[in-house]
């Protein structure tokens, strides 16, 4: 039995919206799992159901072998870090961290020790007597983390905790969260809409769309073998190029040029996905196109162009000399191609 098990969990809001649909997941002890998906896909609802802040319409959730469907959030032994941190504005940092412990009837001395230890770990021991309004964004983030850590829960739940930070701080905190999680070995679930965060943090990633799990796997799996067209588009930046085409006897035709796919398949309405960095520029490539727009990113550049009437982008080393409005030739390599059936949205 897994540490956290979700079985056919469904959430239907009173207004009839189906936020989560028949979701089943198994999460192992010590794992760092990231729920990723576009906003409104139900990832936060799923997290809140695990926390007990949202009722479960049907299905079962069990934690550490116990069914927790109807158990009060305070007794589930989970800690959550909220998007806006939800620090208690009228309490000092120390009391913010100590509050959960006090409610559990832990002795003053023990609370003192625990809070001080965690504060040192997070380097906020200088701030213990301050109120949250006197802290910077990054410090608040740390306090929110500290409040979760100090309780030593079975599971950490992170609800987009980095989205209120500026880009630089976000990268730094991302690393720290990962490091802390490794160090403490506590099972964690992290919700985000940012695929970079998902890829870098997760041991495993759960891609969610419209309340349904589209794919569950390691970051590498998900990037290299997206199960559905949605996952293919969602993971990876810039996003994967998708070309609609017809496949006959394993040969796809894009813009009247043939790509031999090495698979004997026939699909009337197919879609071929190529990552922007898998497009090969070569002087005698079979496709020829005009660079509509060039984005220079330092070591790399991104070129936006079209084949036929389909837009695509490719990522190149910026050592290649190519300016906007110039022609370039390229190839699509069959081994790097992902094939999807447009009718089902699934990988072929």
């Amino acid at each position, binding site marked *: 039995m897994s540490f956290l098990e979700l079985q056919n969990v469904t959430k239907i809001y009173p207004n009839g919206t189906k936020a989560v649909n028949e979701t089943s997941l198994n999460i192992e002890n010590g794992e760092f799992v990231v729920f990723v998906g576009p906003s409104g896909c139900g990832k936060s609802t799923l997290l809140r159901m695990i*926390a007990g802040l949202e009722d479960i319409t049907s299905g079962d959730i069990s934690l550490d072998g116990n069914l927790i469907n109807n158990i009060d959030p305070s007794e589930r032994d989970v800690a959550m870090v909220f998007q806006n941190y939800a620090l*208690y504005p009228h309490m000092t940092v120390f009391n913010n961290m100590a509050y959960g412990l006090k409610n559990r009837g832990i002795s003053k001395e023990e609370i003192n020790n625990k809070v001080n230890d965690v504060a040192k770990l997070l380097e906020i021991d200088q701030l213990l007597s301050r109120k949250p309004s006197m802290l910077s964004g990054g410090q608040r983030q740390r306090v929110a983390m500290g409040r979760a850590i100090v309780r030593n829960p079975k599971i950490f739940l992170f609800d987009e905790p980095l989205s209120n930070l500026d880009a630089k701080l976000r990268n730094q905190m991302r690393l720290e969260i990962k490091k802390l999680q490794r160090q403490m070995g506590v099972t964690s679930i992290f919700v985000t809409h940012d695929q970079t965060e998902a890829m870098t943090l997760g041991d495993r990633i759960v891609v969610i769309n419209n309340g349904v799990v589209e794919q569950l796997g390691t970051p590498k799996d998900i990037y290299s073998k997206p199960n559905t067209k949605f996952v293919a588009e969602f993971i990876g930046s810039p996003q994967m190029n998708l070309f609609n085409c017809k496949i006959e006897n394993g040969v796809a035709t894009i813009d009247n040029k043939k790509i031999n796919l090495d698979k004997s398949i026939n699909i009337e309405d197919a879609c071929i996905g190529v990552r922007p960095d898998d497009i090969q520029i070569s002087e005698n490539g079979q496709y020829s196109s005009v660079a509509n727009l060039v984005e220079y990113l330092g070591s790399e550049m991104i070129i936006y162009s079209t084949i036929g009437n389909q837009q695509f982008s490719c990522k190149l080393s910026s050592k290649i000399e190519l300016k906007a409005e110039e022609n370039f030739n390229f190839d699509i390599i069959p081994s790097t191609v992902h094939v999807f059936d447009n009718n089902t949205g699934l990988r072929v």
Partner: protein
Amino acid sequence: MKIKPLQLLSHIILILGVLLMVLPIWFSFATSTHDNISIIKEGMQFFLGDSFSVNYNEVLNEKGGWSEEVTAFNMFINSFIMALGIASLKVVISAMSAYALVYFRFKLAVPIFWLIFITLLVPLEVRIFPSYKIVSDLGLTNTYTGLILPLVASATATFFFRQFYRTIPDELLESAKLDGANSWRFFVDFLIPLSKTMLAAMFIFMFVYGYSQYLWPLIMTTDEKYWTVVMGMKIIFTEMVYQRFNPNGEIE
């Protein structure tokens, strides 16, 4: 440090404002320390007189009323008991009812809130007879409970607390729940400290409201022991004037 003309002007305006507020109070106080002859002859006084203790002793401690037992000091105490009782109960009750209306999701929360709200249209003066009937049936006439109880529900304060609680982010409640706070703890550890300034403001308003009640204590109290200063003042005043000008108690 050089003072800029604009700064000087604003300070002058502020000082004038302060004087406008403080001087009348000072005049009344200074005048109250003179004997009545100099007041009648010379009008309001700016400087302190020499009759402070005589005047104040007479006002506060002279026994009056029909029973010749009630003093103004006693009335002040009654007024304070009534105002304190009304203000504290009003604040406590409305904070708690607003808490129920905002945080406990029962179906009729909104209609109930509006029902509470429209009681603003029925002030005590309008329902004074039924209120009196109930209080006297309960045997509470001539008690502090009777003075306080019919006035402790407050739609205004409930409304203010409700609006304030609605501005508190849900995450705070959720986070508190995960930290093991039950409904009572959330109220005591979060809502009360967060609404401290509001509690204080409401308390002051409600204290003034309770202190300045006139009609209710007048109807409620037949025993002079429970007279409050607002209603008693008029009675004392008429009596004093009567005594001053008819020292022998002759009927004109």
